[in-house]
C-alpha cells in the first residue's frame, strides 16, 4: 500500500487563495499577524499590494472587513479559530452578520489538533458560536481538496462565510473530480445499519471506522458534512429513515456543533438515536496532535463504539 498523502486543510486554504489571486484581483486578503501560520502568507508573498496585515487586533480586522464589504468589495480575513470566532464574536455578529455582509472568515488552527500550543489556542467552541448567528454559513472541510474547493465556492456565496481549517496534516481523501457544493452533504459509503455523519478531520476516521465495522458485519453509511450551516436536512432525514441510528463525529465540543445541529433537526422531525462523538465539554492541553486525538477519543475505534451504541438503541 502506497503512503497516504497528508496535507493540512490550512495549506489547501492558502493554496486556493493564491490560485484565486492569479485569476482575479477583485478581493483583499487580511490577516492579524499570523500569515505564516494561517497560510495567507502564500498570497501575501505573491500579491503584497493586495494583502493587509491588521496586526494583533482581530476585532478591528473584522470591523475593517465589514467596512470593505459594505463598499461592495470582496474580502477574506484570517486568524486562528480561537481569535476569529472567539475573540471577535461580537464584531462578526454585529458588524458583519447583522447587515449580512459578504466577508469570508478563514479560521485556522481549529480544534485540539492544534497540539502543543495547548488549551488557550485549541478552539472547540467556534462552530457553536458561529451557528448561533443568523445567516452565517459554516464550512469545515475534510481534506486539502475540499478546502480548496470550498474557498472557490465561498468567494461566490452570498453573505458571511466562516471556514474552519486545521493545523495538522491529514490524509487527502478526495481527488480533483470531487464535487463540492455549499449546503450539500456527500454520501461517501453506502450502508443501512447506521449512519456516521462526520466533518473535518473526522471524515477520514469515519472512513476507517467503516472498514472496521464492515469486518464485524455492520454496514455503516458514511456522510461527509462539510457545510454545518445551512445543514443538509435532506441527507440527514433520509439517513435517519433508512438506517434508524446516527453517529456524529467532529473535532469540536459536543455542545453546539454538528452533533447538536443533527440532533436538533431529528428530534423535531424524525427522532432516532443520535450518539455524538466530539470533545466532551472539556478543555484540551498541550501535546502532539495525534496523541491528543487518541486521548480525546477522536479516532475510528471510538466511532465504532458509538456506532454500536447507536445501533443498540434502535
Amino acid at each position, binding site marked *: 500500500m502506497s503512503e497516504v498523502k497528508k496535507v493540512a486543510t490550512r495549506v489547501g486554504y492558502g493554496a486556493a487563495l493564491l490560485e484565486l489571486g492569479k485569476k482575479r484581483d477583485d478581493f483583499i486578503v487580511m490577516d492579524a499577524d499570523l500569515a505564516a501560520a494561517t497560510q495567507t502568507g502564500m498570497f501575501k508573498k505573491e500579491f503584497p499590494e493586495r494583502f493587509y496585515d491588521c496586526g494583533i487586533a482581530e476585532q478591528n480586522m473584522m470591523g475593517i472587513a465589514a467596512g470593505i*464589504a459594505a463598499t461592495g468589495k470582496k474580502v477574506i480575513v484570517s486568524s486562528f479559530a480561537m481569535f476569529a470566532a472567539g475573540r471577535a464574536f461580537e464584531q462578526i455578529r454585529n458588524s458583519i452578520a447583522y447587515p449580512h455582509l459578504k466577508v469570508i472568515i478563514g479560521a485556522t488552527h481549529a480544534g485540539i489538533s492544534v497540539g502543543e500550543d495547548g488549551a488557550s489556542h485549541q478552539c472547540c467552541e467556534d462552530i457553536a458560536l458561529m451557528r448561533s448567528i443568523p445567516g452565517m454559513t459554516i464550512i469545515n472541510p475534510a481534506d486539502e481538496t475540499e478546502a480548496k474547493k470550498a474557498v472557490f465556492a465561498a468567494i461566490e456565496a452570498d453573505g458571511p462565510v466562516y471556514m474552519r481549517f486545521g493545523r495538522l496534516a491529514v490524509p487527502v481523501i478526495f481527488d480533483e473530480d470531487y464535487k463540492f457544493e455549499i449546503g450539500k452533504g456527500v454520501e461517501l459509503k453506502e450502508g443501512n445499519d447506521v449512519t456516521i455523519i462526520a466533518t473535518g478531520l473526522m471524515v477520514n476516521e469515519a472512513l476507517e471506522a467503516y472498514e472496521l465495522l464492515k469486518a464485524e458485519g455492520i454496514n455503516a453509511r458514511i456522510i461527509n458534512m462539510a457545510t454545518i450551516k445551512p445543514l443538509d436536512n435532506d441527507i440527514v432525514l433520509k439517513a435517519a429513515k433508512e438506517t434508524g441510528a446516527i453517529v456524529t463525529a467532529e473535532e469540536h465540543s459536543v455542545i453546539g456543533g454538528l452533533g447538536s445541529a443533527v440532533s436538533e433537526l431529528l428530534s423535531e422531525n424524525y427522532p432516532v438515536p443520535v450518539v455524538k462523538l466530539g470533545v466532551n465539554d472539556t478543555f484540551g492541553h498541550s501535546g502532539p496532535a495525534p496523541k491528543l486525538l487518541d486521548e480525546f477519543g477522536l479516532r475510528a475505534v471510538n466511532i465504532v463504539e458509538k456506532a454500536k451504541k447507536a445501533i443498540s438503541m434502535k
Partner: protein
Amino acid sequence: MDSATKKELQILACKVRLGIIDGVHSAKAGHPGGSLSCTEILTYLYFKHMNIDPKNPKMANRDRFVLSKGHAAPALYAVLAHRGFFDVEKLTTLRQIGSILQGHPDMKNIPGVDMSTGSLGQGISAAVGMALSSKHFGENYNVYTVLGDGEIEEGQVWEAAMFAGNKGLSNLTAFVDYNNLQIDGTIGEVNSAEPIDKKFEAFNWATIVIDGNDFDQIEDALNKAATIDKPVAIIAKTVKGKGVSYMENAVNWHGAAPNDELYEQAMNELNETLKSLQ
C-alpha cells in the same frame, strides 16, 4: 461661510432637532442628549460637505458616513429625512414594530445609512475599512465617522486608530462628539480618555479642536482636514442636549424620552428658535 448659508444651516439644524424630539417622544425611548449634541456635525456633512445623492443612495463613488455612536440614530434619521432620503413623516415611527427606523442604524433597510452600528467601538473600524477600500480600489471617495467621547473608552477604537494611522488613510475624518457626558456621569468621573487629541496624535493622526455646535468651525475644520495627508480627528466640543433647555448638559437625558408635558416644552422651545431664525 456667508450669513445666508449659516442661517440656512441653523434652520436645518433646528428642524433636525425637532425631528429628534418628535421621534424619541413617539418611541417613548431613545437617546436625545447625544443626538442633539452632534446635530450640527451631521447637518453640515449631509447638506454641505459630502458627495451624496438622496435619489441614488447607493451611488458607487459616494462619500461614506458611519455613525459610530449609533445611539445618536435619531439625529442621523432626521438629517437623512430632511435631506430627502425618505419622508420626514417617518421620523415618528422610530423604534416601532414595522418601521425601517430601528433603534440603531440598519444599513439593510434605511436609505442613506452606509453602515449598521450600535455596538460602540465598531463603527470606526468599518469606516477605516471603507477608507481602505476607497484607496485600494482607486475610487477616491472620502469617509466620515462620528464617535462618542464615552465610546472611545472601547479598545477597538484605538485598534482602528492605530491601523488608520499606520496605513495613512488621509481620506478618513473622525469627529469625536465631545459633550463630556456618558450614561454614568461625566467622562472624567467614569473613565476619561482625555487628553483625546493627544491620543489620536500618538496614533499618527492629525487633530483639530473645535466648537462642534458652530457651523463656521465645522466648515473650517473639514476644509483643513481635506488638505492633510493623514487621517484627521476633529475633536468637537459640544453641548449634550443642545437646543432643549432642560436637556442641556444634563446626564439624565442620555437615554430617556420626554413625557408629553416636557415634549411640548421642548417643541415650543425649538419652534421659538426656528421662528427667530426665519
